[in-house]
């Protein structure tokens, strides 16, 4: 069916952007912030109603579209701007608008120390981001998706560099932008390849076309195309090799990190793969690569996260690693599980970031966990929400993270990728440990920070004079934290696996999105749907030992989670020196981790420097000065010379000109009459 409502979802935030961007300077904070949050809530309401309508439809007919206008049409190729709501985008919609609204509300308090114009600028960016993100998830064709893709990249750049007066922030923004460019380039190439193959860019059309042909054996053209798309995804979703921008992105305001760099934008890559599930399913080679890259990223980021000292960077690396897990799921064809984890992760990671934001807020910009500790009694709300978030992230039984992560690992295992499963398990162990470390270092133990710290000033929100001890989150922030904490507990229950007597409602709900469009060839569709359903972990698809296996794996992973937490508790609560000893005894490794495997340095040496050298020497000194300027000057000289001659013709008398014109007319007319 079609519905005129869909366009509203991105348009509302866009309207907010327009207002705040144009007249924001003149609006008081309450108005600009309130408006921004309001449009987000409105768009959430619209999204909710649409999803409700969607749920009302028959399972395999769950598709609401709206064609806005014909974007391009050349020859037989036409491209409409069509927005599409199906189970997959429905989930994304709710996550983006829902969590987005919460983070908007949170920001009204968090950014309150900015001057009005800055405040409005911030919210205009935030709204713009939301609009583009919604376009991204709603777009039914790759180009439309790409528009959103680029748009969110832009907003990410703007928001990371929001405090652009601070060099590190500006650089981080540029880094994020450039790194993403690389990915986007690949993404474009992938699009071209797909267009060359299928002659359409409508994702459903591509899916249908692909479904008709057999799964590609070996590494063929199709695999190359999908691989290119995946490279784009690595750029957006911070996977190896393009993940380096995400940790630096933490220079941006914390709510931004929560919204863009944890909940929504970075998951775009996962979403994109899920959206083109059929396509990817046909290129096992690529899927293999996706899975491996995901696993590797998960592990690497986890290890790095273990030793970082900046509260937000720890969270950033954990995000990278969780994204790695999602890609792992995607790679093993467990699209449902991947999206499931995406969805739960959005909740608790947003919760964690906002919690860290509350901490930073309370400590006036202090971010180094070595200077924190003992905040438990000052920031109860922050503390408890943070703990819940961490537990959920660590996969503590019966919290959101548990279900999704377990689902995902189980799919990996059941899919026969034991090694990948092991890596994932290891990664989640690391997750448990560093989250434990983070919590204990931040909130427990004795207080290691000097009250109102001066670091704040640099960070754009240095509070005025405050009392001695930090104050807990103001209402707006507390609200967001609490809601998200509840989410982190409850979000998982939409996908209780068969093993626990549930029937994985989410998986079932998502299944149609990963199957080729029903319209084409019922037989193929049915088969694919069954396959996808298998992948998505439909209850029926499981037989007994599956359930048994899942139960055991569940036990293992929860054991891992609890164990990791216990280890962390033991080290950082009881015997903190252990950590120091280990650091000392494994000094090289520790240094390696601390310096993030020197990847940044590597890139700088291998890519950045050469490029700079070439552009400076060859392009600037050579091409620009030599060829281009030379050409321009040459033309100028020629014109000068020739006009010196032609000048004679210019008497300057208007009527002389008119006369020549007249003669011309007479001659031309004569000529035409003559022949």
């Amino acid at each position, binding site marked *: 069916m079609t519905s005129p409502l869909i366009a509203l979802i991105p348009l509302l935030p866009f309207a907010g952007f327009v207002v705040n961007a144009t007249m924001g300077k003149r609006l008081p904070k309450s108005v600009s912030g309130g408006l921004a949050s309001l449009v987000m809530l409105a768009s959430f309401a619209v999204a909710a109603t649409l999803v409700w309508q969607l749920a009302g439809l028959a399972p395999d007919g769950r598709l609401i579209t709206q064609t806005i206008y014909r974007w391009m049409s050349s020859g037989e190729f036409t491209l409409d701007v069509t927005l599409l709501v199906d189970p997959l985008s429905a989930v994304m919609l709710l996550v983006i608008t829902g969590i987005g609204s919460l983070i908007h509300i949170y920001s009204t308090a968090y950014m309150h120390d900015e001057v009005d114009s800055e405040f409005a600028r911030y919210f205009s960016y935030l709204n713009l981001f939301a609009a583009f993100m919604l376009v991204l998830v709603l777009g039914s064709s790759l180009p439309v998706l790409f528009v959103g893709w680029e748009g969110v990249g832009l907003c990410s750049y703007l928001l990371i560099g929001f405090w652009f007066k601070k060099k590190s922030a500006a650089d981080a923004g540029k880094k994020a932008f450039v790194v993403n460019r690389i990915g986007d380039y690949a993404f474009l190439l992938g699009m071209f390849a797909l267009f060359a193959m299928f002659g359409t860019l409508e994702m459903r059309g591509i899916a249908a076309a692909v479904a008709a042909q057999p799964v590609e054996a070996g590494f063929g053209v199709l695999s190359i195309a999908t691989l290119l798309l995946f490279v784009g995804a690595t750029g957006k979703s911070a996977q190896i090799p393009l993940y380096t921008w995400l940790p630096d992105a933490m220079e941006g305001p914390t709510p931004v990190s929560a919204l863009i760099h944890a909940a929504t934008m970075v998951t775009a890559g996962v979403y994109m793969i899920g959206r083109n599930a059929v396509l990817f399913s046909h290129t096992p080679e690529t899927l293999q690569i996706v899975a491996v890259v995901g696993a590797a990223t998960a592990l690497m980021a986890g290890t790095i996260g273990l030793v970082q000292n900046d509260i937000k960077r720890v969270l950033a690396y954990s995000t990278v690693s969780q994204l790695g897990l999602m890609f792992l799921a995607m790679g093993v064809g467990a699209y449902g599980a991947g999206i499931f984890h995406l969805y739960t992760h959005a909740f608790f990671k947003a919760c964690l970031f906002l919690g860290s934001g509350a901490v930073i807020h309370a400590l006036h910009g202090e971010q180094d966990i070595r200077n924190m500790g003992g905040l438990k009694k000052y920031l109860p709300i922050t503390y408890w929400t943070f703990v819940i978030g961490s537990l959920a992230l660590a996969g503590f039984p019966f919290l959101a993270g548990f279900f999704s992560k377990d689902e995902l690992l189980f799919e990996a295992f059941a899919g026969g990728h034991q090694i990948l499963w092991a890596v994932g398990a290891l990664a989640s162990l690391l997750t448990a440990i560093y989250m434990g470390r983070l919590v204990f270092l931040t909130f427990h133990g004795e207080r290691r920070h000097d009250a109102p710290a001066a670091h704040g000033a640099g960070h754009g929100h240095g509070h005025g004079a405050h009392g001695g001890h930090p104050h807990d989150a103001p209402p707006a922030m507390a609200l967001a934290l609490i809601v998200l904490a509840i989410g982190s507990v409850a979000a998982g229950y939409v996908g209780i696996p068969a093993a626990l007597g549930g029937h994985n409602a989410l998986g079932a709900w998502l299944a149609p999105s990963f199957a080729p469009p029903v319209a084409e060839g019922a037989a193929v569709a049915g088969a694919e749907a069954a396959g996808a359903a298998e992948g998505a972990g439909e209850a029926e698809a499981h037989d007994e030992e599956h359930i048994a296996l899942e139960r055991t794996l569940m036990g293992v992973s929860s054991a891992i989670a609890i164990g990791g937490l216990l280890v962390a508790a033991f080290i950082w609560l009881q015997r903190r020196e252990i950590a120091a000893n280990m650091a000392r005894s494994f000094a090289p490794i520790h240094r390696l981790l601390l310096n993030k495997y020197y990847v940044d340095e590597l890139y700088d040496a291998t890519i950045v420097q050469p490029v700079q050298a070439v552009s400076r020497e060859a392009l600037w000194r050579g091409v620009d000065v030599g060829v281009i300027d030379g050409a321009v000057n040459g033309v100028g000289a020629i014109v000068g010379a020739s006009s010196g001659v032609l000048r004679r013709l210019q008497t300057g*008398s208007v*009527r*002389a000109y008119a*006369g020549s014109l*007249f*003669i011309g*007319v*007479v001659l031309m*007319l*004569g000529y035409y*009459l003559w022949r």
Partner: protein
Amino acid sequence: MPESVLFYVLSGLAVAASALVIGQRNPMYSVLLLIVSFAALAGLYIVLDAPFVAMAQMIIYAGAIMVLFLFVVMLLNAPQEDGAEWDRTHPLRRPGVARIGILLAVVLVAELGWALTKVVALDTPVGARADGALVGSVRELGKVLFTDYAFAFEATSLLILVAMVGAVVLARKDGDA
């Protein structure tokens, strides 16, 4: 029949007025006579079943452009200045030039006449082929204007904008910003 009478009266009026326009020394009268000629042309358009064009003619030409001319004439009521020394001795005043001009004019008129003889179906009435209703309908006009000629339309709008800016820039004194 009335239509032909109308035609001859109006076209005669138009031609006479135009001739007087360039026969005048006083620009004021030229402008007014030109308005008359435009009005006559508008009448001709109506005879040609083009009421909308006729009205546009009145509104845009007679109503706006001519007022602009009038405005300028009034703003700078310039002195008559032929007979000034430099003017009489102007190179373009030499008889040779004048002769060439006359020759050219004659040639042009001849050519125009010649061209007329080449028009096919010259003596078939204008309205013979199509009914006035279609040609006269503003709806049809708008349709074609905004579909087939959409690009030209946009282009002209741009032209107008440029002209506007140019006029402002030119007409303002160097002093005021």
